[in-house]
């Protein structure tokens, strides 16, 4: 942003609804519409929620340390496992994907920002307020307690004669509707940005694989969130207005809820895992010094997963008795979706194979991702087989499976991404030494926690149950799991220490520290507000790499003298001539209206709903009529 001339400020009083001008200092974080800052805010907030969800998990593991544990009551346990699942899916997994997407997509496609910076800002504040809203339920003693899946009629029966004697399900339904609004706005933003704002020559098939995966999850988000929003509205109406959507006594059908929920819930699994696949598709080629093996096939496999992901939801519902034709069809689709997933795994292995591998922390996490995700994928294929699924249903085997996919998959990839892009975001490296401690603790802790769950699960230990009896032979394995969980916590603590220590030590990173392949490495670290001084022109896949290297007659890599980076240009010009949109207050005001209305809906206080809507409309109106720029000074 240009510095404002003082004379202009004095001469002209600031008009009503003037846009804020500060782009540095702590207050600027509240008004920023810079995609990089918003990405960092998404990441930081998601990490705080990760700690909250992690503490819930540790309490669960303490309760299950020994049979007939008494640390938690059944009611508290229900709240903790519900909030653990809800947090990890909606407040950690999805926002971390949006964090990376926000920060990276414009940099990778050669754009100055996303298509709608203020809507982007809105998405963040809706996420933050939605998360706080959900967690505030603890203050009312009404934390959600019907599971992250919220099955009806457990959750939908009215409070007065309900099974769940609290407003937990109301908080849950209203909170998730709110978070869904944020997700849909960020989905629309990603789709438009990726389709419309690519640099010249950046055709769809020249886009980095991470951008492709972000595009696919944006599409999935767009189509997966509405069914669950509809289902949550129905749950809310059933609880508070006596409708009979899921009330079997009046002809309602609780199974309808499961269909609507899993029509969202399964694509949601791919919304969570595809960003991880995108991240390792970027790190593995760089740390193997080889192009991504079959990059187009990886993209096509991602698209195939995106499509087939819509036809597998019933595998969550085999135990409901939908009949052989239905379960067979969905079973086959579930097996089929393993094919593009397996193709990707072989592509990653092919990338590493024969490469000049550098075992950095980021690479270790990526390799860990491949191994752990493959294990999770294998137990996933086991679930597609209907009779065996019926045996495993609602046991810890399922818990083991999806933690291998989402923790072993997504979380490992996210950490890989942190270590890889940290220099780009903050201009300094994270400590590799502590990073390796971080990785090995996480790897050991993770397997110690979740591998025994396969065994106790096959032995019949039920999930979602606050305790278990003695004498089943589950004691030792559960104790291993609890120890593992604390090792995971230690590992996350090491990561946070690393973040702080590395910031103090400030090991300054150059523009291209890893010898990268994609456009974000062609600009300085940390990235200036305007991203690219000159919008780059792209000629091929991995364009930046090909600007740095060529091959001699024998096919050996030769570094070009110019090096391809435009970091040098940035020293010549400070980019102050580049016009960037000004920060804004109003998306945050708009977002603030949502939780206010939310409390009104939960406590059936229509005045409060009205106040929330008024705040929202005020924010919206100001947003629409505020000037495009801070000052008419040019």
């Amino acid at each position, binding site marked *: 942003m240009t510095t404002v001339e003082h004379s202009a400020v004095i001469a002209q009083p600031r008009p009503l609804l003037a846009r804020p001008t500060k782009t540095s200092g702590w207050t600027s974080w509240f008004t920023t519409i810079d995609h990089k800052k918003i990405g960092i805010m998404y990441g930081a907030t998601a990490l705080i929620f990760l700690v909250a969800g992690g503490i819930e998990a540790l309490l669960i593991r303490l309760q299950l340390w020994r049979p007939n544990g008494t640390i938690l009551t059944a009611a508290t346990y229900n709240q903790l496992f519900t909030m653990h699942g809800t947090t990890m899916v909606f407040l950690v997994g999805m926002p971390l994907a949006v964090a990376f997407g926000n920060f990276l997509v414009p940099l990778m496609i050669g*754009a*100055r*920002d*996303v*298509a*709608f*910076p*203020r*809507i982007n800002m*809105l998405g963040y504040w809706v996420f933050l307020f939605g998360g706080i809203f959900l967690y505030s339920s603890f203050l009312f003693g009404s934390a959600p307690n019907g599971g992250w899946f919220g099955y009806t009629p457990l959750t939908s029966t009215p409070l007065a004669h309900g099974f769940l004697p609290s407003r937990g399900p109301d908080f849950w339904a209203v909170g998730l509707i709110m978070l*869904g*609004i944020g997700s*849909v*706005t960020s*989905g*629309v933003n990603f*789709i*438009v940005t990726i*389709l*419309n*704002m*690519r640099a010249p020559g950046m055709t769809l098939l020249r886009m980095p694989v991470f951008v492709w995966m972000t595009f696919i999850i944006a599409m999935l988000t*767009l*189509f997966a969130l*509405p*069914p669950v929003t*509809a289902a949550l*509205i*129905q749950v809310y*109406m*059933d609880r508070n*207005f*006596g*409708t*009979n*959507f899921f009330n079997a*006594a*009046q*002809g*309602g*059908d609780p199974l*309808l809820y499961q269909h*609507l929920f899993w029509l969202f819930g399964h694509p949601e699994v791919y919304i969570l895992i595809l960003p991880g696949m995108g991240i390792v598709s970027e790190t593995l080629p760089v740390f193997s010094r080889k192009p991504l093996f079959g990059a187009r096939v990886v993209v096509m496999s991602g698209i195939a997963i995106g499509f087939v992901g819509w036809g597998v939801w019933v595998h969550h519902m085999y135990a409901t008795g939908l009949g052989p034709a239905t379960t067979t069809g969905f079973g086959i689709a579930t097996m089929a979706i393993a094919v593009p997933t397996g193709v990707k795994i072989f592509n990653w292995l092919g990338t590493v194979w024969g490469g000049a591998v550098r075992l950095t922390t980021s690479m270790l996490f990526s390799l860990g991702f491949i191994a752990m995700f493959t294990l999770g994928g294998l137990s996933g294929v086991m679930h597609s087989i209907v009779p065996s699924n019926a045996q495993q249903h609602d046991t810890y085997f399922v818990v083991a499976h999806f933690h291998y996919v989402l923790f072993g998959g997504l979380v490992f990839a996210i950490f890989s991404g942190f270590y890889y892009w940290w220099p780009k975001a903050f201009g300094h490296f994270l400590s590799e030494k502590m990073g390796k401690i971080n990785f090995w603790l996480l790897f050991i802790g993770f397997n110690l926690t979740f591998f025994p769950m396969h065994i106790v699960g096959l032995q019949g230990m039920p999930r979602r149950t606050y305790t278990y009896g003695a004498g089943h032979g589950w004691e030792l394995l559960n104790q291993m799991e609890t120890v593992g969980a604390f090792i995971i916590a230690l590992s996350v603590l090491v990561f946070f220490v690393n973040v702080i220590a590395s910031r103090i030590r400030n090991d300054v990173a150059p523009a291209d520290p890893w010898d990268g392949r994609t456009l974000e490495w062609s600009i300085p670290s940390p990235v200036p507000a*305007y991203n*690219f*001084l*000159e*919008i780059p022109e792209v000629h091929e896949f991995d364009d930046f790499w090909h600007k740095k290297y060529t091959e001699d007659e024998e096919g050996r890599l030769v570094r070009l003298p110019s090096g391809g980076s435009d970091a040098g240009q940035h020293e010549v010009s400070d980019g102050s*001539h*580049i*016009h*960037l*949109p000004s920060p804004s207050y109003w998306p945050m005001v708009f977002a603030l209206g949502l939780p206010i209305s939310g409390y009104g809906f939960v406590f059936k206080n229509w005045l409060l709903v009205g106040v929330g809507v008024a705040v*929202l409309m005020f924010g*919206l109106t100001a*947003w*629409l009529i505020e000037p*495009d*720029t801070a000052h008419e000074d*040019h």
Partner: protein
Amino acid sequence: MTAVAEEAPALGAGHDGGGHDGAGHDGSDHGHTTNTGVSNTKLAIWAFLSSECLFFGSFIASYLLYRGRDTNFQKAGLIKTAFKPQELFNIPFTSATSFILLMSSLTMVLALAALQRGDERRFRIWIASTALFGLTFISGQVFEFTEFYQKGLRLSSGTFGSTFFVMTGLHGAHVTVGIFWLLSLYQRSLQGKLGPEKAEAVEVAGLYWHFVDIVWILIFTVVYLVPYHK
């Protein structure tokens, strides 16, 4: 979710290669090109409407699942009372208000055409007519809801009361948001801030408005026109 659609005319961050001071504020205007040739704003509204399809699709699917169930359950003795939709509905009346809603799509098109020609006076006439037709439809819905309520139909009347009120009510809420959107365009035009160069803002509102009309065609068919079993 609907309110967000109104945000579409937000910033398109300067994607114009730099140096063009002041250009690229409005996503679509100022003639700079996008990769697809479709402006950011228009692409965003299409994406948003595609999402809305699934939203209404879920409610229509719920309605279809429960269609006629109350009567069957009553015959089987599973529930005590059941409303017969065909005895509640006043199909000529609802057909008339539906026709008015569909005609509002025509006036919407005429409004856009007028603005593109630069005829701002006719634009205001047509956009006001569109809002008025929408308002007529909503009044019809309010009248219908009141009548059904007086005949005893409640949200808690079996699955028919639940699915009917919630689905048509959410559609009505969408129409209401649309009316406010149209009125805000009318207001901007009165202030002289909506010239032919801003025609896309009207086009985007029009896409939303047509979408809401099309959804009503589906709901009207499924709820009113397809005969119920006796």
